[in-house]
């Protein structure tokens, strides 16, 4: 089994090296085929490993020593258990479909070997992240995927805007990474190890740990997760990350990388279960992220931006679930979200591809006829994310809302609003894009099969994935997902009395989703323009369209002072004080050398004369009249 594991890890790495360093083929088809084959090999290995883990002898483990300093001992530990298998399947499965899709999407691109090399490298590092056996190894994958994200966002680095977006993503992630590192150090301080197994076992075995410290550790780790998983206040990089190629947005910024924060917390489930204070923070942040992003999403005009904010919103929902200690629910939503959000992104990519790069939905409309496959699959994705049964989103979202309801009624209300808004902005997007009349100028055309095939597969997955984790309300269907994860993550337990019966809550949310979908369809399917005419809504729209001016706020609060400080250093401290000091030293040396050079006449006899004087002087000094 270990060899299969190694093959799973190695295939994308080899593909990356071959593409990026060896072949450097300028043809997208050749590079893409190689990358896709590698990704598929990895996927098959993941499937084999999954079957092994599910029905076979259990987790696959490997490790060899990495760092040995005094008592600190860190291994290169890998562990492929049930949780990892879920993530691994998503990464390699969705990943390989997106590789396939990319062949078509990048076909007009020159030198796309770079793109495929990065993409393969990303898959490899993501696998490192999810199969890491300890925090340090996970951090390697964590940073690695951050790097790949940076490289791919800035893939078209000739455009300064896009390069800047990559930079922004990287820098914002740094803040989260600092939190992650702090959390790691606290974990080491608390448990004396970084190994997940040992940490979890230690917490399970005894509760004598300092809860305050554990809260702090959990909090810092959560800051890391907010960075990677785009939560308030560090979400601002994700919408800008849409500057990258659309398949990248689908893979990295919707399906996999952004969920690594969720994965991290799920992985350290025993730690987070015990930290009540932190959980409150997590839940509040998750809910506020979900609400904020959903509101912003309702008035965006860029098709990818809408999806980006939708992603942020859905991630917020997952974090909310984490805050409610419903780790299984969060992971389930992660999986279903990976399917339908990847589907939506790929669909939007197909649209953009068809419209030769047009992303503004005001230039779209009525594409249903020219892009039938895309339109149909996009509709499936929309229904799925809107939470309309029996598609995937309904089940996973309902599980989360149920958890929120159990935890706190207020959280459930917020979650229900988010669900309603989700249905609204998604159907708005669908209507404006595919219904009504075509407002653009470019002649659209349907995409090739390499692009539509992944769309189809993902659409089917979005329809069926929900039945893996049917909520408890439908207790006659077993919850496979929860059962499967039971050894790693204990299922969620009911506690206390509910303000609302779970069935009625489900009916309310589903009904709201239906209503808002219908409203969106009615309002926008016949709309002449994207903007609504209502004066009443204008101030809201202004706020939402400008993302609550969060970027501007950050600009004033952090970026500007930092820039001023940098300017100070650049203009004054560096040239005057530091350079000045160095120049002073060099000038002093030169002056001194100018004096000493008088002794360097190039005449050997002069040197010997000086030496003799020195010897005579030294001897006289040594003797001090003792002999003479």
């Amino acid at each position, binding site marked *: 089994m270990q060899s299969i594991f190694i093959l799973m890890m190695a295939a994308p790495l080899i593909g990356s090296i071959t593409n990026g360093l060896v072949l450097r083929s300028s043809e997208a088809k050749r590079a893409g085929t190689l990358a896709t084959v590698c990704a598929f090999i990895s996927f098959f290995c993941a499937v084999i490993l999954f079957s092994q883990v599910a029905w076979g002898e259990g987790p696959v483990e490997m490790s060899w020593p990495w760092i040995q300093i005094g008592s600190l001992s860190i291994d290169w530990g890998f562990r492929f258990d049930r949780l990892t298998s879920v993530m691994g399947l998503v990464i390699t499965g969705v990943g390989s479909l997106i590789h396939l899709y990319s062949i078509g999407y990048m076909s007009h691109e020159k030198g796309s070997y770079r793109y495929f090399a990065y993409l393969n490298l990303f898959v490899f590092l993501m696998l490192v992240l999810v199969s890491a056996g300890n925090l340090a190894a996970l951090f390697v994958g964590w940073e690695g995927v951050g790097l790949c994200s940076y490289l791919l966002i800035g893939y078209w680095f000739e455009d300064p805007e896009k390069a800047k977006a990559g930079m922004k993503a990287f820098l914002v992630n740094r803040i989260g990474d600092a939190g992650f590192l702090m959390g790691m150090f606290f974990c080491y301080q608390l448990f004396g190890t970084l190994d997940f197994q040992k940490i979890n076992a230690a917490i399970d075995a005894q509760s004598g740990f300092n809860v305050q410290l554990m809260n702090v550790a959990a909090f810092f780790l959560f800051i890391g997760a907010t960075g990677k998983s785009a939560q308030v206040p560090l979400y601002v990089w994700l919408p800008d990350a849409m500057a990258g190629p659309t398949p990248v947005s689908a893979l990295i910024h919707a399906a996999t990388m952004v969920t690594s924060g969720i994965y991290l917390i799920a992985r350290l489930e025993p730690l987070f279960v015990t930290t009540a204070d932190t959980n409150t923070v997590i839940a509040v942040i998750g809910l506020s992220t979900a609400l904020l992003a959903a509101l912003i999403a309702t008035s965006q005009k860029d098709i990818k931006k809408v999806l980006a904010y939708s992603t942020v919103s859905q991630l917020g929902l997952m974090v909310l679930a984490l805050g409610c200690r419903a780790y299984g629910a969060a992971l389930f939503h992660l999986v279903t979200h990976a399917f339908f959000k990847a589907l939506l992104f790929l669909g939007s990519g197909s649209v953009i591809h068809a419209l030769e790069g047009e992303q503004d939905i005001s230039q779209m409309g009525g594409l249903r006829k020219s892009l039938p496959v895309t339109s149909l699959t996009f509709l499936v994705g929309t229904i799925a994310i809107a939470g309309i049964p029996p598609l995937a989103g309904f089940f996973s979202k309902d599980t989360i809302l149920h958890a929120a309801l159990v935890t706190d009624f207020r959280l459930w209300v917020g979650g229900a609003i988010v669900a309603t808004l989700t249905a609204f902005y998604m159907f708005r997007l669908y209507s404006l894009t595919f219904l009504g009349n075509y407002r653009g100028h470019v002649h659209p055309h349907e995409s090739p099969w390499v692009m539509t095939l992944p769309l189809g597969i993902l659409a089917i997955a979005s329809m069926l994935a929900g039945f893996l984790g049917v909520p408890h309300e439908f207790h006659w269907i077993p919850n496979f997902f929860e059962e499967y994860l039971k050894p790693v993550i204990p299922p969620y337990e009911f506690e206390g009395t509910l303000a609302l019966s779970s069935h009625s809550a489900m009916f309310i949310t589903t009904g709201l989703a239906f209503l808002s979908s219908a409203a969106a369809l009615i309002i926008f399917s016949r709309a002449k323009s994207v903007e609504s005419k209502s004066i009443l809504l204008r101030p809201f729209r202004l706020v939402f369209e400008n993302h609550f001016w969060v970027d501007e706020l950050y600009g004033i609060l952090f970026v500007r002072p930092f820039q001023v400080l940098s300017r100070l250093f650049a203009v004054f401290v560096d040239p005057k004080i530091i350079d000045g000091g160095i120049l002073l030293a060099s000038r002093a040396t030169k002056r001194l050398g100018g004096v000493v050079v008088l002794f360097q006449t190039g005449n050997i006899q002069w040197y010997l*004369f000086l030496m003799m004087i020195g010897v005579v002087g030294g001897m006289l000094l040594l003797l001090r009249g003792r002999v003479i």
Partner: protein
Amino acid sequence: MKEAVFTFFSLFTLLTAAGVILSRNIIYSAFNLVLCFFGLASLYLLWGATFLSMIQILIYAGAIVVLFVFVVMLLNFEKPTEQKTRFSIIVLSSAGVWTLALILLRVLSKSLGEIPSLETPAKASVRTISKLLFSQYLWPFEVLTVFLLALIVGIFVLARPEKEETP
């Protein structure tokens, strides 16, 4: 008798050494140098270092000065002209040198005079010297051989005629 011989050879050595540094003609300097080495060899002989005395003649007189004379002759094809040294330099140098000599004489006669002398002068036989060379001083000896090897290479590089620049 012995003192007389000793004094004679001491004076001989010093006079010829003075000849080395005072001669205007460089060939006389070389000639004086040979004689000086002979004087030194005689002094060694008087002190009982027979082997060293022979070595002194064999290497210094037989090889080193021959090389000097050889080079002098090579350079003689166009007579090298030596400029006169400035008088001030001579005065300063002499003052320094003789001060140093005086100090050294005082120090040495004071400190070395305290070394107990043997009743009869020792004989440094070749056997003793070679035993020392190959036991106590083996390491310096080996280092010296490596040094000589490096020297051979160095000389070879120095003496090689400059290569014509090949385009």
